[in-house]
């Protein structure tokens, strides 16, 4: 006999935890986003200011710049990860000596904590002691200084993210490729399709759901990157790599502007949802008929 009561009883601990640690904080952040509250500022009182925090966002150059560099970062990082991840997945589909060892080693970055990844890349890129600036200078005569050059700093945050997260993409796409039946590909060979045509007409549509799921996951992760970038560049030089997560952190903690920080958080959540929804509507829904 199935009883609804027992079901709800079993669900209660989960719902309680979700409520206390997920829903309540969200409601609290939403509540704060309509207030001006800086407990360590000149006026420490919490004052209800309607939507003024949101209005302020629109004219806040730092916030807008932060959104722009975050989108740029997310685009370059996620796009590169998908392309490199797919190529690696295809490589792992083939037999070659040492494949198992290489596959294991290649997934190791996934188990490293982001803060450690940030530290290691900082060590590797710090001018005068880092291995990357040293060899770039020795071999190519290039001067790399992520503390001075905004473009280089941005590029290294992207490279670091790619290094850290491509294995996840590889594993997901490898699983998708391995699960594909081989007959449609043989049929395509007989039908006369070239490798590129098979990729475009058969492989890509058949692993589209896996690619999109990976893009969703990686996009949401990239939009909230904080710790790695904080360790590598601290958001600099200037605000060149102050991605939105870092920007919120700066507003909420050093500046203790809780109300405004909450408003940014809410708007970022909204933007993330909208982007995912647009991706879904644009890419998944119309092509989902056959799958």
């Amino acid at each position, binding site marked *: 006999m199935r009883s609804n009561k027992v079901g709800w009883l079993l669900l209660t601990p989960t719902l309680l935890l979700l409520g206390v640690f997920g829903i309540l904080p969200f409601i609290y952040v939403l509540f704060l986003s309509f207030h001006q509250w800086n407990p360590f500022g000149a006026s420490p009182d919490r004052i209800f200011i309607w939507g003024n925090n949101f209005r302020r966002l629109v004219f806040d150059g730092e916030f807008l710049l932060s959104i722009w560099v975050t989108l740029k970062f997310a685009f370059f990082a996620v796009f590169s990860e998908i392309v490199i991840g797919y190529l690696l997945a295809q490589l792992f589909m083939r037999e070659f000596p040492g494949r198992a060892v290489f596959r294991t080693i290649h997934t190791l970055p996934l188990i490293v904590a982001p803060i450690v990844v940030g530290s290691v890349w900082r060590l590797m890129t710090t001018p005068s002691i880092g291995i990357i600036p040293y060899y770039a200078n020795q071999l190519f005569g290039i001067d790399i200084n992520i503390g001075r050059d905004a473009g280089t700093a941005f590029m290294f945050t992207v490279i670091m993210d790619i290094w850290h997260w491509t294995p996840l993409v590889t594993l997901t796409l490898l699983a998708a490729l391995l699960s594909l*039946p081989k*007959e*449609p590909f*043989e*049929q*395509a*060979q*007989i*039908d*006369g*399709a070239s490798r590129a*045509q098979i990729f475009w*007409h*058969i492989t890509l*549509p*058949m692993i*589209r759901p896996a690619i999109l799921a990976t893009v969703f996951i990686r996009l949401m992760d990239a939009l909230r990157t904080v710790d790695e970038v904080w360790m590598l560049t601290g958001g600099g030089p200037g605000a060149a790599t102050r991605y939105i997560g870092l920007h919120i952190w700066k507003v909420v903690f050093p500046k203790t502007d809780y109300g405004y920080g909450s408003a940014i958080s809410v708007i970022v959540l909204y933007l993330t949802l909208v982007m995912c929804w647009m991706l879904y509507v644009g890419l998944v829904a119309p*092509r989902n*008929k*056959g*799958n």
Partner: protein
Amino acid sequence: MAEVTVRNVKKRYGTVQVMHGVSVDIEDGQFVVLVGPSGCGKSTLLRMIAGLEQISEGQISIGGRVVNDVMPKDRDIAMVFQSYALYPHKTVAENMGFALKIKGAPKSEIDAKVQKAASILDLGHLLDRYPKQLSGGQRQRVAMGRAIVRDPAVFLFDEPLSNLDAKLRVAMRVEIKELHQRLGTTIVYVTHDQIEAMTMADKIVVMRDGRVEQIGAPLELYDHPSNTFVAGFIGSPAMNFIKGKVEAPGTFLAEGGARLPLPEVSAEAGRPIVYGIRPEHIDIGEGGVAARVSVLEPTGSETQVFARLGTDSIDAVVKDRLTVQPGTEIPLRIDPRRVHVFDGASGARI
């Protein structure tokens, strides 16, 4: 249309040899069925003709052209897979027109050919559907339609009916045969079902363990199987085999003690042989050998009788409706002209 010639083809996977010098000649427009139990190499041979498997030794030619090193797309073949291999994200029309689209054919030509194939297979109303919206039989027809659209020299079918239920299988069997009669294209068809092979083929190739056991027309294989394997494989229910020896000219003595009539064969008395008789070539009547009935299986049109001849089992199919009880003795009459005699050691026909 084209003839297909397979000459002494061998296939090795590393050190394991799975195909041991297979040779088959398929004439232009012929319907040839490769048949045999699982693992006999029939699908591998088909895939080698398609170019999906490399051959280790030997030669395959299609339409007089050696195709050993020719890519599948350049062999002028079309293949229908057991799983149909439809592209799940393409509609029926897109699936059928894909090969032409890849070739860069104009849309009007693709549409016309797809429409023509669809009308042949009665798929016109399904052209906008996706494979998942079709039944097994419809998918099967789409897979065939895709092959027809390409207008190939040779059709290759790899167990295309295995995933269908029994009734649909019979219907599709007829459809494929009609299609062959209509198009006249050479067909190489793989199946493990000997009924399919018997009913559809102009020529059957019986395979076992990577070797050809016998090649011939269906009735030729039925009437003159070259060994016990072919004799047991072709025909349903399977042929009865009874081990024993030639007792005297015209008499067979089974190991189980029964004495059965033998045809005139060049086997001296005392030679160990295998006595083969098809169940449908046994009837019940005066002067027969006494057998004890174990089980009766009435199917309406006929009755299958499982009986014991001494310690040997024998299986007969009779048109009469029997009412005897299990354990009863009945006289089984065997026409010696219908008996097949095989060597006791090699199993080869004597």
